[in-house]
């Protein structure tokens, strides 16, 4: 179902063609990074720290180097030490420990051998002497007076600092007079919340193949959300010039933010350089969970003031994010989720605290889900206390265009009210709550980002087009590029071949994150097509013998008065005689990414004797601006929702006292399975983003923001207990019921 807000009618945009890369993916032919093998290739394996925090006194690799099949061994000594002020310092240290291991699972050596088994055997033969250091695992331990340092190189960002500390960042945002508003309020609700570390949970482990040739140039095939990012970070960690590296994007088996950074490529490159052979490096699932990007755990305190008629007059909130062992976490803006509501008086404080746990990484709308869980829970409690409908209280306070964001800048045209109204009018919300079940509502948004993209569009002799971009396709973006190009050029979407090209075959493009691919890269494609149409008109004018001004481009044909329309294929057929190949490149640094709002609704039951939650019905409403390929927009909503349901109910990192992850497998890190879920109904709202030629807002991130509160609010209405700790696993729900 789609709600359209005066959206223009398009021929291709908004249709649902079969995605261009689909055939390879249903026949097993699509090439993911681990599917590639090169002649003479070696296999690599890591030695990882068994300790949560320790000084490396010595590493003896001599025995390992002499083992059967072993061709190269690397340790931290094989990588240059970046200056701690270097923006890539933390990535470098995480790729390979120098001097100190900062978490259990931290890589400190790697071996390349003829077979995986030989590499693993050699890893086991590396001798390391450690001096154990204190292990800090929680926010309280990290922030305690006199706490031992997690990472001696950490300098706090954004505030004055007198040396290393465990504080990563600290931000405060204020407006109005919070104290006065609380004093005058009819109702004040204050709650504390906490959330666990969760993993992005992509099914494809990180993988790469690297071949460093005799000329010193590295060919890298890797699975990532941005191959230009891989090139830049790999060069930085190796101390190489960027031009020494070419990165070819493999198909990526899921990222969700977790593949916006690197782990493997410099290690494989150094092993390849030392051995003179191509090196393949593939993580195991256990390694993925122990040593790649969880999203931060968090604690929060939320205090909201309301009037008796449901106006939210003030918010005072504090968020503490547990960001792991390094300080390149930049996601605190996610705490700005409070800006879903007008809140004339606002105080928002957010800190990041370091711990001896894996370096955290981005995960869909980084840091917003933790905040929205807390805020949306308190708003629901206010609605319950005031006996207001949970949609009405949100409509009463929802931000609209011109209202300030948390940082003060006014919101552009947004669709929050439209989403709330769409849910209010939906079949789901108008249906009675099933017997024995309860219904919860939650909302949230994500800013989305623009950044740099490039696109090249080549017209082929037969009138077809190749659309080349540098954005790895993590959820169907190639189809979206083809649809926008088809709309612009006026040719069939299947006449377009969308390609994601390597770093030497397309212009620079930032990482696929922040829901930016269809927005920014799509805009580059549109710009290239529009330039191409200008060129097509000129060629048509030549062919038809008329002035350029007399030619207009209509539905894939050059039209001029008194002559038959000239289709695109007739122009490309005469490319040589009219000036040569028809090809255009466009690049941009896109601003104007439009925030995407969502409202979710969930019906569930709680087994009050076991604490088990069963989700009966779920609807996700979200503003897509314009849905270029509605099926994949729905898919983003559904996927984000189910990740959020996993975060809400069962997903968590469990560490022992020494910082070792106890549940580093898909058996015990419990992501939702098909039988856990009902269908996820979607309502795609379309309030076009004025800053995009087709009105696109990114849709990938927002879907994960509302589910935790949506589920928690339904649990409260089912049981009368307020769950304030994620995950809301059966033992925690039962314990809460028992103490109620």
């Amino acid at each position, binding site marked *: 179902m789609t709600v359209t807000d005066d959206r223009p009618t398009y021929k291709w945009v908004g249709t649902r063609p079969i995605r261009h890369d689909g055939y390879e993916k249903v026949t097993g032919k699509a090439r993911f990074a681990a599917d590639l093998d090169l002649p003479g290739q070696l296999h690599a394996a890591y030695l990882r720290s068994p300790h949560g925090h320790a000084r490396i006194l010595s590493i003896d690799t001599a025995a390992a180097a002499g083992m059967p099949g072993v061709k190269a061994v690397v340790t931290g000594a094989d990588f240059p030490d970046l200056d701690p002020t270097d923006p890539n310092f933390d990535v470098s240290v995480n790729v390979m420990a120098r001097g100190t291991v900062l978490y259990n699972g931290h890589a400190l050596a790697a071996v390349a051998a003829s077979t995986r088994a030989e590499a693993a055997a050699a890893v086991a033969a590396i001798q390391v002497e450690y001096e154990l250091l204190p292990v800090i695992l929680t926010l309280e331990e990290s922030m305690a007076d006199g706490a031992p340092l997690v990472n001696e190189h950490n300098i706090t960002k954004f505030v004055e600092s007198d040396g290393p500390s465990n504080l990563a960042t600290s931000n405060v945002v204020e407006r109005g007079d919070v104290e006065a508003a609380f004093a005058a309020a009819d109702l004040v609700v204050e709650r504390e919340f906490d959330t666990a570390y969760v993993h992005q949970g992509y099914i494809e482990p990180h993988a790469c193949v690297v071949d460093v040739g005799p000329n010193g140039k590295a060919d890298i095939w890797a699975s990532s959300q941005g191959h230009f990012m891989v090139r830049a970070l790999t060069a930085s960690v190796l101390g190489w010039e960027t031009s020494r590296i070419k990165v070819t994007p493999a198909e990526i088996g899921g990222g969700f933010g977790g593949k916006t950074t690197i782990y493997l490529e410099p290690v494989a490159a150094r092993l390849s350089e030392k051995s003179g052979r191509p090196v393949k490096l593939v993580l195991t699932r256990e390694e993925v969970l122990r040593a790649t990007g969880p999203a931060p755990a968090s604690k929060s305190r939320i205090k909201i003031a309301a009037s008796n008629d449901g106006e939210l007059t003030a918010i005072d909130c504090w968020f503490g994010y547990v960001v792991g062992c390094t300080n390149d976490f930049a996601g605190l803006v996610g705490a700005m989720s409070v800006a879903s509501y007008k809140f004339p008086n606002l105080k928002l404080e957010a800190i990041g605290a370091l711990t001896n746990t894996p370096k955290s990484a981005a995960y869909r709308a980084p840091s917003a889900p933790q905040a929205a869980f807390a805020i949306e829970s308190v708003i629901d409690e206010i609605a319950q206390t005031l006996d207001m409908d949970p949609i009405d209280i949100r409509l009463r306070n929802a931000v609209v265009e011109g209202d300030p964001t948390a940082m003060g800048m006014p919101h552009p045209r947004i669709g929050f009210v439209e989403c709330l109204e769409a849910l209010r009018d939906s079949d789901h919300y108008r249906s009675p709550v099933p017997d024995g079940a309860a219904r919860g509502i939650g909302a949230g948004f994500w800013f989305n980002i623009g950044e740099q993209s490039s696109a090249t569009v080549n017209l082929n002799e037969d009138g077809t087009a190749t659309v080349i971009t540098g954005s790895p396709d993590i959820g169907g973006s190639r189809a979206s590029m083809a649809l926008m190009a088809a709309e612009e050029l006026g040719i069939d979407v299947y006449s377009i071949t969308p390609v994601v090209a390597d770093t030497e075959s397309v212009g620079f493009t930032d990482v696929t994150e922040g829901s930016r691919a269809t927005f920014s890269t799509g805009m580059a494609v549109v710009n290239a097509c529009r330039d191409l149409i200008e060129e097509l008109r000129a060629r048509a004018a030549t062919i038809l013998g008329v002035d350029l001004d007399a030619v207009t481009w209509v539905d894939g044909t050059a039209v001029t008065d008194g002559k038959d329309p000239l289709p695109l294929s007739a122009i490309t057929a005469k490319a040589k005689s009219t000036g040569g190949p028809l090809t255009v490149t466009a690049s941009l640094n896109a601003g104007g990414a439009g925030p995407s709002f969502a409202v979710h609704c969930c019906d569930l039951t709680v087994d009050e004797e*076991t604490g*088990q939650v069963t989700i009966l019905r779920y609807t996700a409403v979200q503003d897509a601006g314009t849905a270029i390929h509605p099926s994949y927009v729905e898919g983003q909503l559904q996927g984000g929702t189910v990740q959020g349901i996993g975060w809400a*109910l069962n997903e968590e990192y469990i560490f022992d006292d020494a910082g070792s992850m106890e549940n580093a497998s898909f058996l015990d890190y419990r992501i*939702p*399975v098909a039988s856990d879920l009902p269908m996820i109904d979607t309502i795609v709202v379309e309030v076009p983003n004025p800053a995009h030629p087709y009105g696109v807002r990114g849709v990938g991130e927002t879907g994960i923001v509302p589910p935790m509160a949506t589920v928690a609010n339904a649990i409260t209405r089912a049981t009368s207990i307020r769950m304030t700790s994620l995950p809301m696993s*059966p*033992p925690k729900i039962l314990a809460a019921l028992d103490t109620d």
Partner: protein
Amino acid sequence: MRYTSPTTVDEARSLLAEHPGSRVFAGATDLVPQMRSGRPAPPVLVDLKKIAQLMSVTHENGQWTIGAATPTANLTRNHDFTAMFPGLSEAMGLIGSDQIQNRSSLGGNLANASPAADSVPAMIANGVQAVIATADGTRTVPVAEIVTGPGRTSLADGEFIVEFTLADTPADTSDAYLRMIPRTEMDIAIVGSAVRLTVSDNIITDATVVLGAVAPTAVTVPDAGAALIGAAINAGQIDDSALNTLADAASAACDPIDDKRGTVAYRRRVAGVLTRRAAATAVERAQNGA
């Protein structure tokens, strides 16, 4: 590491005798994850699935004989078997995904000696006997006597389970198995409860309760069985006070640990809840001749 696939019990017995430290396997659904997590690989793998006796299911003269390596899916798809042992079948149907159940076996589920193995409480409740190949013959012992602790069994080096035997259930007797997992599938039991009981003239005349995942091994709870025996069934419902005594007895029998899968308090509490529910289901089945 060498892979072998003997076709007779004798051949397997010889391989195990010749190669100390070697491992028998059927589905390898526990073996492979253990090897991946760094446990040393055995010098010789002995695949038992080529031995016809270990892969057969027979039903003769009121007795079932189940080859120890038979995939559990073969049993859960056997309508005669599932009709007679609905609880044991439920337990086998909960061991992982369809992919796993096409490999997992009763022999492996038992010999792996996980406290949380789903089929074990249901086998014990049904009085299943294990036939074990010894160095020079066979011995038959109740399933309850195989597992001695987490990862430990009473099987001597070189011994392996050949088959299981169990007798038909009378028409007035049935069983049920319930487990608690946080998801709906693909999890290890936090608590498992198997109940087998007999109902005669609306009175429970016999009952066995066996719990899983709440102690180092599956535990039979005589007090829980005793709570049921003599309880009256009214309109299909077990007497409330008997159910409460049953639940308390089940909870009291728990000797669990706090671990990544559940807390002590949770396991105790839910052991009572599931046992009560399993008893209700078993009564319904017994009265309907299931």
